[in-house]
């Protein structure tokens, strides 16, 4: 147990270091982009004079490394700062968006993960059958299309032709949970179609891989039913690679959904990030990137921990 805690502590320390490096990359990446917030907000109507006044107002006349250090000092005390563009607290700005993104990601995950596991296990069980082929073809097809295409196809049928679901996901805070689920079902379905294939194939491959090992042979010779062999004997040992893939896909559900957000007009974090990058609103870009990076790091960390726990050889190293 102490061993695991040590690993976790190590990983968290490494994660913080990664975040620091990322924040450096992001700041100077945005800095390299042409123009700044004052110029991009004023756009065509930027004159040297208005840009100068605007920059002074925003503190953009200070050199980039000083602004970065200011930001870092704030971040260390948990203060994400205010948006340059509209002076709103970033924590407040990001809060609603993050909740929306997590809601959509969580909803999609709640459908996708059990579905992928089920399909994968069944595919392993009835390997090379018609069902196996069909599931493979279907999931690989859906992952091969770009997300926006899958989204438009779903909209075409379920929103326009049949009229069962709304064509855009206009969610506001006062909506009841049921309504919210109903309004976000199409984007969640799109994401599900996109991520299921990866997890399903990994589940299938990992289990099939183990089915060739001697102890499964033994179990089979004992006369155990195939379902039980897979669920009790193969699956626990196959968990490590599956959990890793699930973690990657969950991370994707949080950080990679911007296209789906745009198509369904869903007010998530991705949209906020894109807006902020195009307007060079550095503090907001920083905050969003930090959240995205943390999600990645945390999910990977938990995947590692789970694989260690499920594998006695790693849990009790000699």
């Amino acid at each position, binding site marked *: 147990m102490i061993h695991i805690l040590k690993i976790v502590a190590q990983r968290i320390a490494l994660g913080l270091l990664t975040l620091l490096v990322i924040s450096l990359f992001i700041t100077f990446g945005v800095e390299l982009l042409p123009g700044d*917030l004052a110029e991009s907000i004023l756009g065509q109507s930027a004159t040297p004079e*208005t840009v100068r006044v605007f920059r002074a107002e925003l503190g953009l006349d200070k050199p980039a490394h000083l602004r970065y250090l200011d930001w870092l000092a704030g971040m260390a005390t948990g203060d994400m700062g205010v948006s340059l*563009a*509209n002076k709103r607290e970033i924590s407040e700005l990001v809060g609603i968006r993050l909740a929306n993104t997590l809601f959509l990601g969580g909803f999609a995950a709640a459908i996708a993960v059990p579905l992928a596991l089920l399909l994968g296990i069944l595919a392993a069980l009835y390997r090379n059958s018609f069902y196996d082929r069909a599931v493979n073809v279907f999931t690989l097809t859906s992952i091969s299309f770009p997300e926006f295409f899958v989204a438009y196809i779903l909209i075409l049928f379920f929103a*326009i032709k049949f009229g069962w679901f709304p064509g855009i996901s*206009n969610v506001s805070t006062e909506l009841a949970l049921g309504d919210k689920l109903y309004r976000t079902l199409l984007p969640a379905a799109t994401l599900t179609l996109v991520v299921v294939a990866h997890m399903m194939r990994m589940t299938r491959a990992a289990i099939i891989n183990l089915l060739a090992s001697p102890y499964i042979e033994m179990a089979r010779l004992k006369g155990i039913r195939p379902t039980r062999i897979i669920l009790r004997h193969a699956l626990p040992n196959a968990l490590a690679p599956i959990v890793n893939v699930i973690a990657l896909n969950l991370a994707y559900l949080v950080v990679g959904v911007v296209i789906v957000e745009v*198509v369904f*007009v869903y007010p998530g974090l991705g949209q906020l990030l894109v*807006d902020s990058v195009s307007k060079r609103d550095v503090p907001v870009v920083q905050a969003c990137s930090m959240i995205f990076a943390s999600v990645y790091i945390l999910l990977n960390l938990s995947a590692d921990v789970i694989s260690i726990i499920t594998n006695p050889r790693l849990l009790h190293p000699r």
Partner: protein
Amino acid sequence: MKEELISGKITRREFAQRLIALGIIGSSAGTLLTWADKAHAAKRGGRLRAGIAHGSTTDTLDPATYENGYMSKINYAIQNHLGEVDHTGNMFPELAESWDPQNGAKTWVFNLRRGVEFHNGKTLDSDDVIASFQHHMGETKSPAKSLLKQVSSIRKDGKYKVVFELTGGNADFPFVASDYHIAIKASKDGKINPTDGIGTGAYVLKEMEMGVRFFGTRNPNYFKPDRGWFNELEMLSIVDPTARSNALTTGEVDVIDRVDLKTAHLLARKSGIKVEETTGTKHYTFPMRTDTPPFDDNNVRMALKHAVNRDEIVEKVLFGHGVVGNDHPIAPSNPFHAATLPQRTYDPDKARFYAKKAGGSIKVQLSAADAAFPGAVDAAVLYKEHAAVAGIDIEVIREPSDGYWSNVWMKKPWGACYWGGRPTEDWMFSTAYMGGASWNDTFWKHDRFDKLLIQARAETDQNKRREMYYEMQQIVRDEGGVVVPMFANYVFGTTDKIEHGTLAGNWDLDGDKFHERWWYS
């Protein structure tokens, strides 16, 4: 009497005659008339939901930062201005009751409407107007600042009268004073709170999430009795064109702006949906830097102006939703548009003739990105093909959309650009064609043009003004540095339950005032 008009007992003409007989001055009679226009058919009620092509998380409610169509529509929903442009393109008093130029249009007296209430209960007076103007003057980032440079002082003359002193005569000052940035807001101790969202407008701001959603309810004390028909107004920012069409076709919204031109005809075929368009002042241009070779030679400019097939560009880039331009920025809807000026057409022979005068072959680069206007790169490629027929070699350079306005526009010798246009000739010319103007994107300077511009600005005789503006349009057309191939229509879609009067073309969606002008049948 207005009730008589509304109920149809008297005609508009009779109405106007009676008003004049009663001694009501022309401008306010006009206001009563426009507001009464078609009002007898309007009904109150319902929630209007609009899907708007703009909007960003980085927007703010501060009028000095309005830069896109989403904020402009919110602006017109919650706030009013001194004057309002109607469907004829003329300016009518809105929060002002009347205005009066004195001293050769150097002094302007604005009489304010009485009894207008802000959403917070305060009554509009001179102090509010002065504070609202001062927000855009002095040390400010407001784009209206350069417009208000001509104002040397503002003072109040009683509770309901504001006097502007200008540095030079300007017969169009009411247009300037009604610029969309200069929303009139409630003041406290001589200052407005720019981001409080409180105005005198037809809708009271209830909820606002930038880049996502605006929600407002009808202002029960709105000062225009026959405007603002909807009980509730919801505006969603839907930037993706396909998502916008989807929202309209699936009934999630009732109105969308900027219909995707490629699919507009398909949308119009759908039952229950109307696609409508207005031709306003919005135009797409290819400005050449006249201070940079080879564009400093007017023969080169003339060669290029003759080397473009405008009809084909309107047909292929605008899908027919527009009209051809005549190499000057004045739209057919502007009051002094020179309709008699011959339309410039595609003429490879003339282009060749001018190219020869310029010393033989012309080889130039044209920078374009879709940030300049949708389809700019396609238009540039078409231009290249047209010019090739005349032996002119145009190399199209595809620039990144990101940062286009800071790195390409007014930097590269020849590029693409768009102008929302301006309601008056003076404003358009002063903004982008006067020598030394900060947005003079052709870096053009013409002494005769500049002299006419100053003269026409102070001239109050309409016929003389018309002559001067005609001449100026001709000068820009024949000597200016800009190619204006087209004026683009505003194309929008609504459900067939929406009704409206004659549409204004000064901005998208009925002058961005659709929410107060339209109603449900």
